[in-house]
């Protein structure tokens, strides 16, 4: 089990009703962590359209959640 903080933006923030949540997870990687959060909050976006960032830097989906890390699920961007 690792204690992590998840960050939600844009439509994910709306669906989750919060911009972040702290939780203990046994997910083997960030991909599984997203699928769990998606099931829990009903996110519309499939993982294939998302990116993941760990501690403020883009990361790989197969990275395991590390104790104390901040994990952000990044929906398709629309700046500009």
């Amino acid at each position, binding site marked *: 089990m690792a204690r992590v903080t998840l960050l939600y933006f844009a*439509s994910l923030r709306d669906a989750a009703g919060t911009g972040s949540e702290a939780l203990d997870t046994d997910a083997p990687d960030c991909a599984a962590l997203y699928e769990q959060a998606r099931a829990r909050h009903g996110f519309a976006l499939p993982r294939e359209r998302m990116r993941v960032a760990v501690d403020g830097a883009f990361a790989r989906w197969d990275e395991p959640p590390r104790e104390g890390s901040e994990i952000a699920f990044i929906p398709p961007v629309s700046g500009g």
Partner: protein
Amino acid sequence: MIDAPVPGPGEGDARLFAIASRPFDIAPLRTRLLNDRAGAYAAFEGWVRDHNDGRAVRGLRYEAYVELAEAEGRRIVCEALDRFGALDACCVHRVGELAIGELAVWVGVSAAHRAAAFDACRWIIDEVKARVPIWKHEHYADGDAGWLHPRPTGSTAPGT
């Protein structure tokens, strides 16, 4: 992230890219790009327009993952200087509530010649739109509203 006014010359990385939570002045940002070796300057501004994809828009809100947006934005500007041989460049993107006609994003590039200035400027705004974690929430005239999560190559991708 910066409040207005814009970052000063001493603020290091904010010279390259910054997220602004309030309206900012372009003039001092442009002045910083002036250079005796520069013969060319290209700039881009994205303004909030009154329509998108055929729908009337009343205004919008931008949200950013500020820490990552500023890091990725700086990477883009540095890459552009290197790739196109431009002399200097800067990009600032707004977050928060914006009305029709408000400035959403500004890019400025100075270079010895105009090809490098234009190419770098256009590449920066293209990459910012594609890579920087900023999201647009549009308020439509019909009362509807929504987050824009465009598909990478779809014709439904909105944008300036």
